[in-house]
Each structure stands twice: as C-alpha cells, then as structure tokens.
C-alpha cells in the first residue's frame, strides 16, 4: 500500500505544482519559472527542518515566503514583457537558480549511524546542501514517525485546501479581475483594474504555492540536488495546465493526475511509456485545444448538480441533455 501512498503523494505534489502555474496563468502570464520557486521552497524548508530542526509546517511556510519574495523580485522587473518573452525570461531564471543550488554549500556537521571512518564516507555526515553532491538526509518524516499513508493524507488535505482557495477565488471579484486581465489587459485597465498589481499578486501567489510543493517534495524524497529542478520539469508543469485545461482550476488537477498516473498504469507497456506519454500530449492538444476540461463543461456540470439537488429543471441552453453551445473560440 505504501507504494500507492507514494504515488498519491506525488500526484498531490504535481497537482499543487500545476496550480502554481495556473495561478499566474489566470492573469495570462505563462510562467516557466516554477521549477525555480519549487527549488527555492525545497531548499529553504529542507534546510530549516534538517539543519535547524524546525517543525515541518513553519518550515514549509518559510519556504513559501522565500519563494514568494523571489517571485516578487522576478515579477516586478519583467512586468513590461509580453507573452512568450516573459516565459523565456522565467526560463532564464530557472537556469540561474539551478546553477546556484548546484554550487552552493552550507549546513552543519551531522552524525550517521554507520561508522564513517573510511575515507569514502568522510564527507558524508554533512547536513545541508553540499554543491553538486546534493542535500541529503532530509529525514523529517521518518524521524517523526510520519508514515507514507499519513503524509499522503496530509497532502490530500492540503490539495483540498488549495482547491478551496481556487474555488473561492474563481467566484470572487478578484478571480474575475484576474480573468479580465488575461482576456484583455487594456480593457481591464479601462474599468479601473490595476493589471500590474493583479499580475504581480498572482505571480507571487503562484511562486508561494510552488514553494510549498517544493517543501513537500524535498521531504518525500529525502534527497535533493539543484539538478532536479531543470527546464524539462518546468515545461512538464506547464503541460499539466495546458492539457488539463487552463480555464478552470479543475483542469490542472486532471492534467497532473493523468500524467502522474499514466506512467504508473502504463508500467506494463514499459518500453514505450515515454512515447505514449508524448503521443497523449500531442493528441490532447490536437483534439482538445482548450484542454480536457473547459469552463463550459464545468458550468454545465454545476447546473446539472444544482438541478439534481433542487429538483428544478431550468429551461434554456443550460438544460441537461440540451446540445452544448459550440465551444470553439476565435
């Protein structure tokens, strides 16, 4: 069972990561910098728990805060950039962060159970990032008797909490304001929405969410290096959102779930797993341009649920079973 708990934990982490991309995606900012914030969250919180013995919750919060601060520092100067230029700037940021974490060293001496007198092990009892050797010994979970099942449960709860955040956000004025900025920045300014503020806000929140995911990832894996947080990873995060659907927060969940589960389920087809993965990605984009879940689908589902509960049948295009309005755009 521990295996499935681990898969569920990874699914939750990927979902949170997908939401971190989605947060700025709501304002039309396509960020490929999430791997950088992921790394910052992972290194910051793992340092706090492993080196300084903090509790995991405040450590995760500090990781999120650190990521958010860096997110602000990235977002403010890049505000002028449009579309894919911004995306590329964030990619450059990921590279810088990766190289920095690949070379940084700090921490404290630790002691291991094994007699480390051999030459081979003389550098082992180092707790903290050690350049290219990585940051090992993040053993908060086993030290505090948190079983994979419990960890998975906490992660599921956290995913639900973030889900509630996005659910509320999408129904609030703030969420609509973000959507407005995405659809038409100029018109949004024209009705008094401060597009710069909204974009920076959404970006910083996204960075903080990625920081949380980084903390969870570091503690799940117990060992991280700067090289884990590379460009392919950051592109995958974006792929979760685009494939699942970037119009509602349900889309990123589906994208993350599918692409975490696919390699596990398709394990039988071992040899051609990556090909299947790529083809699935390609096919989704060709046949469903707005991703698997669109806003119209969510609206219809909501109406259907409402109808089922109130027993009232609405008349009009939202009626269950009525042909859906054609969702093609442009």
């Amino acid at each position: 069972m521990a295996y499935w708990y681990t898969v569920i934990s990874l699914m939750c982490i990927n979902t949170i990561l997908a939401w971190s991309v989605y947060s700025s995606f709501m304002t039309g900012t396509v960020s490929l910098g999430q791997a950088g914030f992921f790394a910052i969250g992972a290194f910051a919180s793992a340092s706090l728990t492993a080196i300084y013995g903090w509790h995991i919750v405040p450590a995760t919060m500090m990781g999120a805060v650190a990521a958010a601060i860096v997110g602000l520092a990235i977002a403010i100067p890049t505000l002028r950039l449009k579309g894919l230029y911004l995306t590329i700037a964030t990619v450059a940021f990921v590279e810088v962060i990766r190289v920095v974490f690949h070379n940084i060293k700090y921490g404290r001496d630790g002691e291991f159970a094994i007699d480390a007198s051999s030459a081979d092990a003389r550098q082992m009892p180092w707790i903290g990032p050690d350049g290219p050797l990585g940051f090992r010994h993040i053993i908060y979970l086993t030290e505090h008797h948190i079983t994979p099942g419990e960890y998975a449960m906490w992660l599921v709860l956290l995913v639900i909490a973030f889900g509630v955040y996005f659910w509320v956000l999408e129904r609030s004025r703030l969420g609509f304001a973000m959507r407005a900025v995405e659809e038409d920045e100029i018109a949004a300014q024209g009705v008094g929405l401060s597009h710069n503020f909204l974009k920076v806000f959404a970006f910083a929140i996204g960075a903080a969410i990625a920081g949380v995911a980084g903390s969870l990832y570091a503690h799940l894996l117990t060992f991280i290096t700067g090289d884990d947080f590379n460009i392919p990873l950051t592109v995958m995060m974006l792929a979760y959102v685009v494939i699942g659907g970037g119009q509602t927060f349900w889309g990123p969940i589906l994208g993350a779930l599918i692409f975490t589960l696919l390699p596990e389920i398709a394990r039988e087809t071992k040899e051609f797993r990556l090909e299947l993965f790529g083809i699935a990605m390609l096919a989704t984009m060709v046949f469903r341009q707005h991703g698997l879940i669109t806003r119209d689908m969510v609206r219809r589902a909501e109406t259907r649920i409402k109808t089922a509960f109130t027993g009232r049948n609405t008349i009009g295009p939202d009626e269950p079973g009525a042909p859906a309005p054609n969702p093609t755009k442009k």
Partner: protein
Amino acid sequence: MQFDEFFFIDLIQTGIDGAMLGSVYALMAIGFALIWGLLGILNLAHGQTVAFGMFAGLVSAGHLKLPIPISFACAVVTGVLVALLVERICYRPIRRAHELVPMIATLGFWITTEEILQKIYFHMYFKDFMPFPNPFTMTRFTFGEFVIRFDYVVTMSVAVVLVAALYFVIYRSRLGMALRMVAAGHDIAHLMGVNVLKTLRSAFMIAGAFGGAAGYLLGYVANMANPYAGSMATVKGLFTMILGGAGSIPGAIVGGIVLGFTELESAYLFSFAYRDAIAMGLLFLLLVFRPQGLFGTRVEDKI
C-alpha cells in the same frame, strides 16, 4: 582568470572560439526565428530536425560511406521531412488556437521522437554516443599566436552560405515575397492572393533544412552523434533566438555569436561553474532592459 602574459592572447583567442561556436548556435536559432517570426509560435520540436539531421549524417557518412556533400544533403533532406511532419501534425490542425497549444503539441512531438530516436540508436548500436565522421578533426590554421580549427571554419562558411541563400530566397524570389507578406499578417496576405498555408509549409521546410544542416555541423564539430542533440539544440537555439530578438534572422545570427562568445568568455574570465548562470543572467537582464532583444523591433500596443 590569471592576469599574466597570456591574458590578452587568451582573451582574444577565447573570443574567436566563442564566435565560431556561436555560428552553430546561430544555425539552430534561425529555424526558431523563422517560425516565430511568421507564425508567432514556439516550435519546440525544431530541435528534433537537428537530431534527425545528425542521425542522417551519421548513417549516410558513417555507415554508407557516402561522400560528405551527399551526406550533408541527406541531413538537410531529413531535417526538411521532420519539419514537414511537425507542420502536418503539430501546427496545421491547431493553427487557429492559442499560441500555447502548438507549443505543447510540439513538446509532445519532441518527447516522442527523442525517445524513438534513442531506441533506434540503441537497437542499431547498443549505445547512444556514436563517432561522427570528420576527417579533419585535428586540422588547424595558425596565425601567429592564434589558432582556428578547420572544422569551425567549415561550419562558419557553410553557415554564411546558407544564410546568404536564405536572404536571396527572402528578398529575391516569389516565395520570399510571399513569406514577407505572411509575416506582415496572415489575413492580409490571404486577401492579397497568397496561399498562406503553402507559404507556411515552405517556411517549415526552410527551417527544417537549417535544422538538418545544423545537426550535421554540430556532429561534425563535436565529433559525435547522439539522440539527445535535439534537446540541447532546442534550449540553445531558443535562448539564442530570444537574445537576438525573436523572429529576427540577423538577430538569430548575431545572438548565436554573442551567446557563444559570452559562454566561453565568462568561463574564461569568471567561473566555470557559474558559466551558464552568467549567460542566463545576462539574458534575463537583457530581456528586462531591452525586451525586444538585440535586433527586434518594439511593437507598441494598439488601443
């Protein structure tokens, strides 16, 4: 960095090497720039034309022992075919969608074909780094204190010839006129009687030809062929294009040279370990202070 009697000689020599290395980056970036300039999409599968071009060069020159010009042509044709496939699968069906949609589709193409290519290498050779035929590995020209590698000279000359040919096509042919019109706007070009789809297909073919050529030359310079060249080409080509100004062909050329130069000079002057971070940090600053890249033109928002 050591400030000794060799400092300036090495500084200049590093600059020369960097610029030469950059000519390969430039070739990789031109394909990106062409597609972005005309279509406004990021073709992440472009690197695969490089990888397949390299593979075609390996098979034709290394196995079939074809003469170099013919194997080079094989690489170019392979690049064109891959690019046509990309156009057919990842662009044509979704050309009206949001710009991210073709980007993710090409990402899927990238992952799939890289894995397939890796399997081909693996089943053919049981390894993934293969020697790329290059009879002139050791040949060098010496000018006083300075040396230039022969294969870099070849690469640079091929790049110059290809770019000249591209300019000829763009400014002196019917296709070029159509391309320029499409770049100005698809709808306008359509109204002016240009077959937009056909023109875009030609653009993909040209980009593929550049990719195939870059793949061959990359293998030639590095002396090895491997299935992951596509990933490297995608990342480097992308950064090069942005550095030069997205969509600008002279920008791609200058951007490549600047990137190669910066990489080697920062390795020489500052730090090996932080070399990539320095290059990327400079790119980030450039984007912040000059978002349109070195050669791009600023587009004002139309209200």
